[in-house]
């Protein structure tokens, strides 16, 4: 049986498992939307700053739930993977002819499906709330594609944390660290308007800024090739790095003779 067929079986399991955990779905959908609601009403005055790219903070803030939701989902994916290690399910899988790449892609499938669902819901909620989407209909598949790559990258991070620690608790404990990266980016303000030098420098080197800015470009300015290239590039870079590191970690975790 091919690795693709093995991956397909695990994709089915991963999706079923994800959809059957309502608590995880609440975290993945409700929290990003709640923070979106708070930010867009509480920080609306930021649009008064000279040079702010849009008159609607709602539209500006809508980019954040996409990235934030992916982080929540990555945490769930990591916790699920860790649970497989703790319960011995990974040992069960290790006794089959399954290969590591098929396992990794299968495990991450749930988070990709969730990422697409999140993107659709966040987009619909944004539209209903009156946020703009300058890129128009053609921008929707691009946004979905970017959401998928971001989900894979963050999912890889969750998987790496699970594989390195083998503990769901440790994965949950690492999660706040991931959030630090989110808040040290341009989620609340455009980088050009940050007056604190060290914060602007960190946000400039933080790849999360470029993920947010790529999504934001579709919402605010339409088609910004540079922003999209940087966003896709950073998302793909994170995905390649985390998946490569996860593959090595999985190889030692599944060290069969």
């Amino acid at each position: 049986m091919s690795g693709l067929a093995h991956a397909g079986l695990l994709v089915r399991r991963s999706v079923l498992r994800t959809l059957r955990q309502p608590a995880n779905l609440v975290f993945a959908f409700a929290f990003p939307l709640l923070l979106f609601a708070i930010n867009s009403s509480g920080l609306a005055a930021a649009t008064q700053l000279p040079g702010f790219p849009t008159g609607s903070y709602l539209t500006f803030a809508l980019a954040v739930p996409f990235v934030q939701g992916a982080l929540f989902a990555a945490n769930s994916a990591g916790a699920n993977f860790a649970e497989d290690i703790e319960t011995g399910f990974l040992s069960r899988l290790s006794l089959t002819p399954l290969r590591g790449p098929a396992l990794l892609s299968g495990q991450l499938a749930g988070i990709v499906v969730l990422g697409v669902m999140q993107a659709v819901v966040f987009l619909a909620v944004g539209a209903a709330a009156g946020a703009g989407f300058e890129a128009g209909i053609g921008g929707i598949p691009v946004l979905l594609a970017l959401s998928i790559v971001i989900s894979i990258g963050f999912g890889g991070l969750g998987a790496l944390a699970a594989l390195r620690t083998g503990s769901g608790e440790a994965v949950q404990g690492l999660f706040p660290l991931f959030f630090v990266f989110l808040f040290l980016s341009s989620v609340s303000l455009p980088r050009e308007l940050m007056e604190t030098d060290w914060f602007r420098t960190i946000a400039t080197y933080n790849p999360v800024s470029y993920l947010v800015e790529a999504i934001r470009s579709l919402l605010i300015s339409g088609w910004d090739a540079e922003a999209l290239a940087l966003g896709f590039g950073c998302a793909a870079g994170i995905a390649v790095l985390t998946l490569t590191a996860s593959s090595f970690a999985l190889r030692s975790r599944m060290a069969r003779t």
Partner: protein
Amino acid sequence: MVGDSYVSATVTVVGEASSRRADNGIEVSGLVRDFKGAPRAVDGIELRVEPGEIYGFLGPNGAGKSTTVLMLTTLLPPTAGTARVAGHDIVREGPEVRAAIGAALQEAALDPYLTGREHMRLQSGLHGLTKAERRNRGDALLERVGLSEAADRRVGGYSGGMKRRLDLGLALVHRPRVLFLDEPTTGLDVQSRTALWDEVARLAREDGVTVFLTTQYLEEADVLANRVGIIDHGRLVAEGTPAALKAQVGGSSVEAAPADPAELGALADLLERFGERNESAADLVSVRFTAAADLTAVVRALDAAGIKVSSLAVRDPSLDDVFLEKTGRSLEGAGAEAEEDPEGAGPSERELAGSRG
């Protein structure tokens, strides 16, 4: 002509079955496993399990049972020694070993969010069964382990016994020739335990599956196993059929409690005429019979001496007596001791990860 074809076909089938059976055994030689910063977990184990045999690997917690199983199932490389399972070397021919074995490891490793049927489909699919085979095999195994009615319920709602039975069913999906069961009945009620024993016995008897079963339950090894290996601190301290092992210890024992506690000394003096005194509870006297002694003679002697007893029983030697003789400890107490003693503990997931990394 027809008759010839029939004979020829029969011979071929029997020949194949014989060669399959010949490859179903386990041969272990000098198997060792060390963990960083801990005493040797498995210390030079030598054993041989014949095809179609149920081999009980008996020992207290932390004795090295699970580490041995992890090595034999290719999930943990040995530090030294060799082993062949189903005719394949566990180090050099890992994929071939895995294709030939089924395993239900300690704690039923199941996904609480999937149903029993979904587990079957996943497991059979990963082993390369076609869609039609997956359905048929899955249904047949669910029926076999008595889970047909619960097949479409999520495993999170299963009882411990149901999980163990599903675990066993999953281990059989690809028709393994050798089955490893690591403490399959730990934590189960008597009814579930008996049901699992019946199924394991049937697998060996009817399907010719070789079963390597670890347990800390004396009764389980006694009832189920054709032969038993007793392991302590990573070493095999005794091996043989349960009957032969118990015969090594000696004959039956008589246990009696005096009706009047003041007569304990007199009772002990009397019973010691019939054999050697065993260790026992403070209010009892236990004596292992010499070959010539029997209960009738004891009763007559008690009557003649005017000693009344509140209980009198003859007890055959148990595997615990074997363990006691070989290690100086009772198996039931040894488990608690091993848990307190980190040196005797088996590998945790973290240790395994460390060893693999």
